[in-house]
């Protein structure tokens, strides 16, 4: 196991772990706001939860990008060829 492989594996783990922090905070805020909105206006719960799901998936995408980067580092790393 050479130096590039060690760094790649380490940075893949770093990418996922730190990349998950931001979306997690963002999703928490989004869900809290949606809860608040539903509590205030239960009749519009349908629209809110639909928008919430789309928004959550959008936020989640940031973490997914990090995952893709990590997988690229692990499985398609140009330095290890």
């Amino acid at each position, binding site marked *: 196991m050479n130096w590039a492989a060690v760094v790649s594996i380490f940075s893949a783990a770093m990418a996922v772990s730190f990349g998950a922090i931001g979306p997690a905070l963002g999703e928490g805020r989004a869900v809290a706001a949606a809860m608040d909105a539903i509590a205030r206006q239960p009749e519009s719960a349908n629209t809110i939860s639909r928008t919430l*799901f*789309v928004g959550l*998936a*959008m936020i*989640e*995408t940031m973490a*997914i*990008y990090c*995952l*893709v980067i990590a*997988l*690229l580092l692990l*499985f*398609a790393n140009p330095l290890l060829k």
Partner: protein
Amino acid sequence: MISPLADPVLFHIGPAPITSAVAVTWGLMAFLAGGAFWATRKLSIDASPTQSVFELIVDTVDGQIRDTMQAEPARYRAFIGTLFVFIFVANWSTLIPGVEPPTAHLETDIALAFLVFLAVIVFGIRAGGVRHYLATFASPNPIMIPLNFVESLTRVFSMFVRLFGNVMSGVFMIGIVLMLAGFLVPIPLMALDLLTGAVQAYIFAILAMVFIAGAIGDVKPASPKQEKGD
């Protein structure tokens, strides 16, 4: 461990390698086309239960298009509906043992996002002509032209990475958990994967609608319903 980015080649037709994702896609296409043919074979005014179910699906898609695009759905129903139904069925094809969803491979997602990219241009030009379509790049003001141009490419990129990442990560996680914990343990993850698959299909269709609606801009086809709504 097998790389999630690699796709095993099943066989070759001439020089073209046929991967498992392509084979599954063909199966899904046959299933959807056959299903659509079978469902529309005997249409009648007093709908049978099966026909009602399909009418409900079409009606839901129409409602979503109307809500999101603020336009009459007839023009976009075929494209948006096909996108949604195909991605939905592709994501849920993981329910069949041994089948890996084709959307878990980058090629399928790139192809789908490229279709959206083309559809934005085609629908945009069809709605208001080339001039109007190009003018949408200069909105809200001409300084935004380079940004809008770059955005039209990057949003397609983010679209396929999103779909690919979500579906592939689901498949990958199930593989890892299966390797670590074994039989029956990944079932809750698979249920979560089905939810993600459905939501991602919905989001892909919604985003396609939003992009197309952006390209159409303010040009709205004259229809009595639309004017009444506004």
